[in-house]
């Protein structure tokens, strides 16, 4: 399709080449639908009330960021890591432990601008070490090792009282106040999450075309050949875990600010698997996928209860709907909602081309 266009309109070859390079580098800048989505996201506080702003959209963006870190690893690196939520949860715990909270016996009371970088650094380190373990294996064993790390962390938080405060967790975690703004107030917090999500999205998009991202895709496709080109495949994989861990940690910090508390339930094995479901349902080939998956997940989680009750069913069965949706999407499209969308668009373009060809004939 893009080839066709480029042969049809060719005013100036060099300008065209630059433009094509730009389209390839930043596809969404050429897409009016992307601008429309961006505009709607920016003016959202004018449209939506506090409930939608936080419970739906901020939550979607936060889960999207965490799932984005999995998309980066799985999509570009071919490594399915189930510990991305654990890394996020670790960052959240660290914010609570180093910062201020209702549990004064545990929290060290650092200001947020010290506690947050500390949490990000420690969570990135945690993810990098976990990654260094996981890259020794491939495929299903990577999933097993990362799941084991996630499960171990969940049980550890449950039983450790000195730092993680056991099963009660840490409550009333302080959120940033500065420049006279309460950054946890609905509108301010929505913009914080939107900003972080946008930065993460564009960072992943950018890095995927930078030498590091290209090399990671090379390692995914053929690690042996990458070694025969002078790359150290495992070093690239570990670096990918580090980058993904930082993104997951950002999501984790936002999550603990969102709920103002963190407990073992936030890092349970079920929650780890939710992140996998979000990424796969949305599609792991492009950075937008995890956000689409997160929106579907959050909408189902929030409204399936009411819908189910309306049909006279038990509202707590909303996970059944998520499970069925997951099954359907994996069944019909190995590439999630994005794959379905692209297939539908390709079919409609071939249909228009065919009708166009008919006119010429």
């Amino acid at each position: 399709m893009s080839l066709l266009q480029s042969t049809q309109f060719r005013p100036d070859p060099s300008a065209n080449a630059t433009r094509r390079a730009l389209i390839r580098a930043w596809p969404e800048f050429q897409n009016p639908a992307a601008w429309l989505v961006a505009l709607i996201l920016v003016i959202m506080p004018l449209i939506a009330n506090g409930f939608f702003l936080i419970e739906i959209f901020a939550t979607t963006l936060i889960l999207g960021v965490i799932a984005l870190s999995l998309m980066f690893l799985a999509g570009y690196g071919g490594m399915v890591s189930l510990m991305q939520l654990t890394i996020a949860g670790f960052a959240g715990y660290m914010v609570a432990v180093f910062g201020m909270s209702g549990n004064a016996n545990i929290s060290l009371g650092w200001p947020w601008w010290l506690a947050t970088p500390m949490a990000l650094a420690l969570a990135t380190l945690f993810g990098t070490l976990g990654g260094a373990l996981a890259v020794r294996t491939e495929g299903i064993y990577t999933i097993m090792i990362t799941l084991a790390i996630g499960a171990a962390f969940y049980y550890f938080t449950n039983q450790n009282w000195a730092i993680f405060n056991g099963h009660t967790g840490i409550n009333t975690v302080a959120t940033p106040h500065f420049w006279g703004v309460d950054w946890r107030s609905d509108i301010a917090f929505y913009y914080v999450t939107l900003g972080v999500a946008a930065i993460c999205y564009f960072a992943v998009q950018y890095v995927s075309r930078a030498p590091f991202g290209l090399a990671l895709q090379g390692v995914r496709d053929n690690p042996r050949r990458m070694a025969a080109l002078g790359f150290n495949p495992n070093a690239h994989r570990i670096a990918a875990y580090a980058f993904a861990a930082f993104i997951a940690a950002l999501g984790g910090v936002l999550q603990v600010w969102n709920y103002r508390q963190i407990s073992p339930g936030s890092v349970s094995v079920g929650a780890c698997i939710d992140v996998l479901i979000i990424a796969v349902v949305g599609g792991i080939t492009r950075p937008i996928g995890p956000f689409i998956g997160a929106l579907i997940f959050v909408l189902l989680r929030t409204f399936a209860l009411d819908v189910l009750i309306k049909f006279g069913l038990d509202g707590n069965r909303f996970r059944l709907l998520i499970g069925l949706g997951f099954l359907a999407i994996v069944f019909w499209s190995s590439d999630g909602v994005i794959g379905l969308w692209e297939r539908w668009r390709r079919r409609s373009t071939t249909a228009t081309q065919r009708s166009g060809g008919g006119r010429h004939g």
Partner: protein
Amino acid sequence: MDSVAQRLSVVGAGAALELRGVTRLFGALAALTDVTITVRPGERRAVLGSNGAGKTTLFNCITGDFPPSSGTIRFFGEDITQFPPYERIRRGLRRTYQISALFPGLTVQDNVYLACRGVSRGRFSFLRPGQNDALMHATETLVQAVHLTGVKDQRVAELAHGQQRQLEIALALAGAPRFILFDEPAAGLSPTERRELIEILTSLPAHIGYIIIEHDMDVALRVVESVTMMHNGRIFKEGLPREIESDPEVQELYLGGGHE
């Protein structure tokens, strides 16, 4: 009969590639047994032998894809026996694969760019290359050298077989190669493509030596100055192309196989 080997062994420490007693076992099977080869810088040599003679295993030992079970490998005097593959590549060793080992999801340009980046600094760079990036220029030059400029923005999966073979060679020419291992580069090529391949091989700078595994004698013997004949994982004969071609034992074993 070992005149070339004797002549070359005098060069000794100045060798580009020096294998001493290299053996590779797969379980009880010895794919290579006590292989000793010396290749001087800039030398071009063919390795011949029937299927299962150990030719590709020899390449895998030299590049480190599989390390040898015993023996030593020296590259320009440096003992690289224990080095991981990427360390060997960074020292100027290159190889191509018998079955194209490319990155089908990436474009031709990205494939070549990766090869250029692999043997230079900044492998972990988070910054996209700009329009005037030196490696981008190197990439363009290399893509042009193997006649793929017209398809440089296409995904490798969409290329014809012959183009993939050419790309395979381009990846081996990235950076500053000192010695290249070509594993059946002519496999599946048309006569025209074979002529182009011979042209590429013969026009390589004189200081770049190579070993080529090739079944097509027309290609193999036209682009090399010495030949090593392998049989059952051992060196069977070494010599000049015309010596090997006219050797009765070799004809019996390899060339004459089809006349039965």
